[in-house]
């Protein structure tokens, strides 16, 4: 594992890199990279995993002009243009929203996109709540909202002080991008059809964060010209990457192989 500072324009991304192989850009969710290590280690056996902290998380800088989630999409659009090969992009929760923005905005091709329990789109009506309100929920209720089995949520007691500081920064950063409108950009949905890369949406069967029935399936239908596929991981909650890292990594590899085979098939069909 290496921790690097990657410059993208005037943003410095505090980035974890591990593994070797084709590039995989991992876009983290609300709590940053704190609880993602099992997934990243798994993926690192097949990919060169590039896991930046978004601007305002970790030690990544946030210049004043980075204020909206779309700005993060632009930062990563610039980053993928500098990579040696089109990356596979995996985004979780808020990172899924960032990945969707990236898919809409990028000028460089992406190998594929996997959105794990993504936020970012408002599907319900104005009096529907698409997502549980993590800022009005009791602290003790959050594991039940975010994890398939609350008993398996990360233990937050007796951590080193720097972990609490990391989380405090992460939560403030989340509020920066997600406070209002809550966890979505009202203008994103109609642009999702621009996503050109093969895209898969993954959700846990026990996701109690998305309150709207069929949220992720309906999200998937908005993506690309024909809609994206939805796969469900049994027993996993909203934090798919923490609840089911091995299953998620397997689905990523499987989808990557399928899309690679399809690409070969398509190109041989062209001949």
């Amino acid at each position, binding site marked *: 594992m290496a921790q690097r500072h990657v410059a993208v324009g005037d943003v410095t991304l505090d980035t974890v890199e591990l593994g070797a192989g084709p590039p995989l850009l991992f876009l983290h969710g609300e709590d940053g990279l704190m609880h993602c290590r099992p997934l990243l280690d798994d993926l690192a056996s097949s990919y060169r995993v590039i896991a930046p902290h978004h601007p305002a998380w970790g030690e990544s800088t946030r210049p004043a002009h980075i204020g909206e989630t779309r700005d993060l999409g632009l930062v990563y659009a610039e980053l993928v243009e500098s990579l040696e090969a089109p990356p596979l992009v995996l985004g979780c929760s808020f990172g899924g929203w960032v990945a969707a923005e990236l898919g809409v905005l990028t000028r460089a091709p992406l190998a594929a996109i996997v959105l794990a329990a993504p936020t970012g789109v408002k599907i319900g009506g104005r009096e529907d709540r698409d997502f549980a309100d993590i800022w*009005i*929920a009791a602290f003790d209720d959050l594991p039940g909202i975010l994890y398939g089995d609350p008993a398996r949520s990360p233990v937050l007691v007796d951590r080193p002080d720097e972990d*609490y500081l990391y989380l*405090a*920064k992460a*939560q403030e950063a989340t*509020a*920066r991008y997600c406070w*209002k409108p809550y966890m979505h950009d009202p203008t994103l949905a109609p642009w999702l059809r621009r996503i050109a890369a093969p895209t898969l949406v993954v959700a846990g069967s026990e996701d109690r964060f998305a309150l709207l029935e069929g949220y992720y399936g309906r999200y998937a239908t908005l993506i690309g010209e024909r809609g994206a596929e939805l796969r469900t991981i049994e027993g996993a909650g909203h934090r798919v990457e923490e609840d089911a890292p091995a299953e998620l990594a397997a689905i990523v590899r499987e989808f990557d192989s399928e899309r690679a085979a399809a690409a070969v098939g398509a190109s041989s069909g062209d001949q």
Partner: protein
Amino acid sequence: MFRAYVFTEMPYPYLPPAALMPNNRISVPNSYYDPDAGYELYKKYFDIYHAADELGLDLMVNEHHTTATCTNAVTALSMAILARETKRARILTLGNPLVHRPDPVRVAEEMATVDVISRGRTDVGFVRGVPQECIAVNSSAVDMRERFWEAVDLIMKAFTTHDGPFNWEGTYYHHRAVNLWPRPYQQPHPPIWSPTTGAASAPMLADRDITVATMAVGARGCAEVFKAYRARCEELGRPEPPLSKFAYSVQLFVGDTDEQAFSEAEKVKLWYREAGRHPIQYSDPPGYLPPEVRAKVLKAKARGSIPSLPLGPPPAPTVAEVVNTPVRDLTAGGFMMAGNPDTVFEQMRDFFDAVGGLGNLLPMMQYSTMPLDLVVGSMERLARDVLPRFIAEVYEPTVRGEREMRVPAA
């Protein structure tokens, strides 16, 4: 001149007890609010202000949202009522929660209107707002300070521009034709106030010549805030700021006897119990506290024990301790003021000396179910038996340089 701006938060005190209803804000259905009772309460609260005006006291109002602790949700409205219903009192709002208001120009319009209707009796406070407001008003706590100061700049420019519209394209606010009608009565603008409970924020208020108010932090905490303000003025090469630039808000009851006053002041002190009557997350929106401080809150939350915050620097009691501390003990450090007129005079004198002098006291005179006659009696004793003596024996001789302040023993 020395001023006492009395106030009530206009509580709605008829919720079920905390044992049955642990929460009093944000999520309490307003079916618990009886409009008939509300009518009687507003009548009482405005009668208190009316009586204060007649007694020669000044008036303060403040606002909170979606809460039974304070039904004065829009201070511009109560100020407008007071502007017409009172004859002489100054009317202070402390204040306009700027970062929770989408349009600072609208705030400027409201304040200018009240200033004209009251014929220049308005004091305009700007506040960041308590954290619970972030949820009640759905206003992000992130970058509050930056939004606050841009809003202040925009309002001040609106108050003081008289040659036609100006343009404002800032980071947070955009206007193409700011041109206040009416403009304020007081020139160049009404006095501007802002509260802080920490010395770190005081220099920013001094930079802009804003009256600094602090609340319930005790004499030692107040002294630190005022000292930081005065030091900044000195650093800027400005003359010593007048005492009118300093204010302290405190719960106060003046009785005929100490015993009666301590007993009645317990009803004002109930504010502390009610202020903490809500789930912790309502007062912990990310961004409100600096990450270094909030990290400690997260650590405490993870351990399942949220420490109660002290009112001021050591040895200040915590909010939880205040609830169970007798009023008499709280008066010792200036956390409350209560007693017979002589006792309250001595408390005010000692506090005045301990903080290097101040020109404004902001006493919370009413809370819970305290009735009109009880509050008016306390205000009468304050206005007739305490303030004239305090002004004659302490405030004016000090201002004239004829009296040395007695610095309390460390």
